[in-house]
């Protein structure tokens, strides 16, 4: 090294220049960004889950149609999304970030007594829904919802129901149905599984009497004749799905696994309006319409006051179900 002082100087100058350029670039990229040029979507779940695919479908639709030039998805997994929420709350005033949220997060907030709540973020839009279905194995003696409910009422402890983790839509819906048909939700024998796949084998193998799971996850097994659907949690009959709702069968319970986006606290009214506009434009893209169909998601677009009212109701309802379940 010492033999080539010139080479060494040139080298260090080059390093300094490149580093300086990189810093300047990073600084300008950070400072001048608006939601239209560069948007970060935070999925508060690990890759592969529902929120993650929701974020990535949005990313795809936004990018392909130039709604936003550069969209990135960041995963912050953990505790039903509350880890992501607590990070997001600290990003005050960030006008280039949206977080994916939904019904599962409300349940998780209640369950974990999280210090951050939905009130700490700015809801932008509810975008799509899917629903939970009550299923039994194909060889189960219960042919209809009525058969199942009769058995359930007689022996709530011996009638086990498999589903997603505690506080999930599966769990909340199970509690809600129990309450509506006059079973003490605390007596429900709910067997929690951490993922849809695991819960699914428990249902097919007949480990539990029944299962409550996202309809999309059980649909192929229903089609193949391994599971029998008894009811679906949608409020109204769905045109593409040939399963009667709970309401149609006389149980006044419905619940959507809704997904949407929210912005960080402290953004201005104009910035909020811009986000709403971005989401409305994304919704109209052919890519997004295609994504809805492919994933069997129901369009439930909702913004503004309507959304705020919906959230208020959801939070109150979730609180009371979680209390009923004795958690």
């Amino acid at each position, binding site marked *: 090294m010492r033999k080539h002082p010139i080479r060494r100087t040139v080298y260090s100058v080059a390093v300094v220049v490149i580093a300086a350029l990189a810093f300047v670039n990073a600084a300008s990229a950070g400072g001048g960004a608006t939601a239209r040029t560069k948007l970060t979507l935070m999925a508060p779940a*690990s*890759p*592969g*889950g529902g929120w*993650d*695919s929701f974020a*990535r479908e949005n*990313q*795809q639709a936004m*990018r392909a149609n130039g709604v936003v030039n550069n969209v990135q998805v*960041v*995963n*912050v*997994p*953990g*505790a039903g999304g*509350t*880890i992501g929420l*607590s*990070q997001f709350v600290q990003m005050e005033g960030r006008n280039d970030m949206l977080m994916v949220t939904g019904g599962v997060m409300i349940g998780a907030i209640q*369950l*974990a007594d*999280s210090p951050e709540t939905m009130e700490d973020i700015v809801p932008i839009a509810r975008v799509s829904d899917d629903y939970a279905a009550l299923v039994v194995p194909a060889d189960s003696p219960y042919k209809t919802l009525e058969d199942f409910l009769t058995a359930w009422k007689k022996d709530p*402890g*011996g009638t*086990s129901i498999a589903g997603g*983790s*505690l*506080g999930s839509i599966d769990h909340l819906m199970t509690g809600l149905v129990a309450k509506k048909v006059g079973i003490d939700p605390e007596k429900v*024998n709910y*067997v*929690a599984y*951490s*993922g*849809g*796949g*695991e819960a*699914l*084998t*428990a249902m*097919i*193998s*007949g*480990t*539990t009497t029944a299962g409550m799971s996202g309809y999309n996850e059980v649909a*192929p*097994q229903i*089609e*193949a004749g*391994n599971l029998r659907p008894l009811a679906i949690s949608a409020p109204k009959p769905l045109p593409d799905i040939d399963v009667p709702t709970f309401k149609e069968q006389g149980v006044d319970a419905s619940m959507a696994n809704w997904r949407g986006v929210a912005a960080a606290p402290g953004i201005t009214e104009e910035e909020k309006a811009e986000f709403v506009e971005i989401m409305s434009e994304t919704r109209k893209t052919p890519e997004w319409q295609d994504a809805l169909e*492919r*994933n069997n998601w129901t369009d439930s677009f909702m913004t503004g006051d309507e959304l705020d009212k919906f959230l208020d109701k959801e939070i109150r309802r979730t609180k009371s179900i979680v209390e009923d379940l004795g*958690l």
Partner: protein
Amino acid sequence: MESLNLLFDGFADALTPINLLWVVVGAVLGTAVGVLPGLGSAMAVALLLPVTFSLDPTAAFIMFAGVYFGGLFGDSTSGILLNTPGNSSAIASSIEGHKLAKDGRAAKALATAAIGAFIGGLLATTVVVFFAPVLAQMATLFGPAEYFALAAFAFLAISAVVSDSMIKGLAALGIGLALSVVGVDGPSGTSRFTLGLPQLFDGISIIVITVGLLALGEVISVASRIHRDPNHSQIRPSGRPWLRPSEFKKALPAWLRGAGFGLPFGVIPAGGSEVPTFLAYGTEKKLAQRNGDTDFGTTGSIKGLAAPEAASNATAGTAMGALLALGLPTSATAAIMLAAFQQYGLQPGPLLFERGADLVWPLLASMFIGLVVLLVLNLQFAALWAKLLLIPRHYLYASITVLAMLGVYAISSSTIDLWLLLGIGLLGFVMRRYAFPVAPVLIAVILGPLAETELRRALSVSEGDLGVLVSSPFTITLYIVLAAGLIFSAVQHLRRRKAEAQQQDRELVDA
């Protein structure tokens, strides 16, 4: 033989020059993320997903196949060279693999691992081609009672790793169990030992524990002695990456045994590849003890590396079969690949082979192609990778620290994880200093939660009736095998003691 014809049609679709390019790209990317600790193939597939939208389905599948298996070829590379497994599936391979590298046979160890991964993947993919529907049925035979029996069985089968010093082994097992109970308890929702920190609600990630104990623990331990043994400031990588015929002959049965352990596990959700890799490792160690092999735990055993490596890839192969035939994602990678398949109109599930035949056979063919490409790639690079060890220790270990920290931070961008990593690294150092085995900690972290949740699920479904645990032929068989094994080893132990006592007597008499 109909499957064979369909498979050949699949090859015809998949084998085009441009697809071969994609599989190489996928294999290189997969290997790269596999090598980095913490970054798994789930992340790689997620990142690649948008890129593949512009490709036709076959090209996309073939690239995914490269990434999927590439991650599994790569994770053992860093484990062997630096004792920093890239993923939990490579923990068992690292134990003997790193000893081989320390002994100067790094290139050879890498080649053994690559061939093992190839054999495991090849056998598993073949099984999937011919028996996918049977695999699907097997998965549904497993209820919580079966899982619990399996976990109990694995605990004892793996105890070979613990048995060097009973007390130290049990202490390490206890540490592992203590680490594994941290987090919100799934069945009841109670938080345990979370100190009120929401970041701990999901428990301590196995990656953090592995990287902390193995990589950081090693780094601190090396750093503490760097001036005391200056002669060993470098591992000398010598030797060629090729196995001699005699070595090949030695490793072959181990590869096959390992694959045998891995095959059934891929089908079981929640199984993961950790349990079969440790079972394979434990078996090889037991066999070595019986045959009087001394290279286990000293200079490193080729068999002890070959078996778990084959097991981990065999698991991955049949896991893909379960995903396709059942629509059940048994791992995070499988879950995201499920989403990817759906993008292309391939709906994994019981009806896949009837409805999606035009896509599923090229996919299976791509898995074979991916494996071959990865084998060639890894054998070529084995010698090159081994050169990594020529880097002077202080630079090398400093970069391991940086990589370990980066990898762990990349999982969930949480600073708590970094502090945990540091704490567990110190624990690893202390354990090394006082010669506690590290493997039992990892075994407890893997099997403990499995045994606990499944036992509680079984009892919750049966409303507390213990009879449910022995209510199926599978569980009864496992417990009988277990009991027989226990009696056998007890008798053996007593006999050996008697023999030793007699020998001592004789020596006394002679004296």
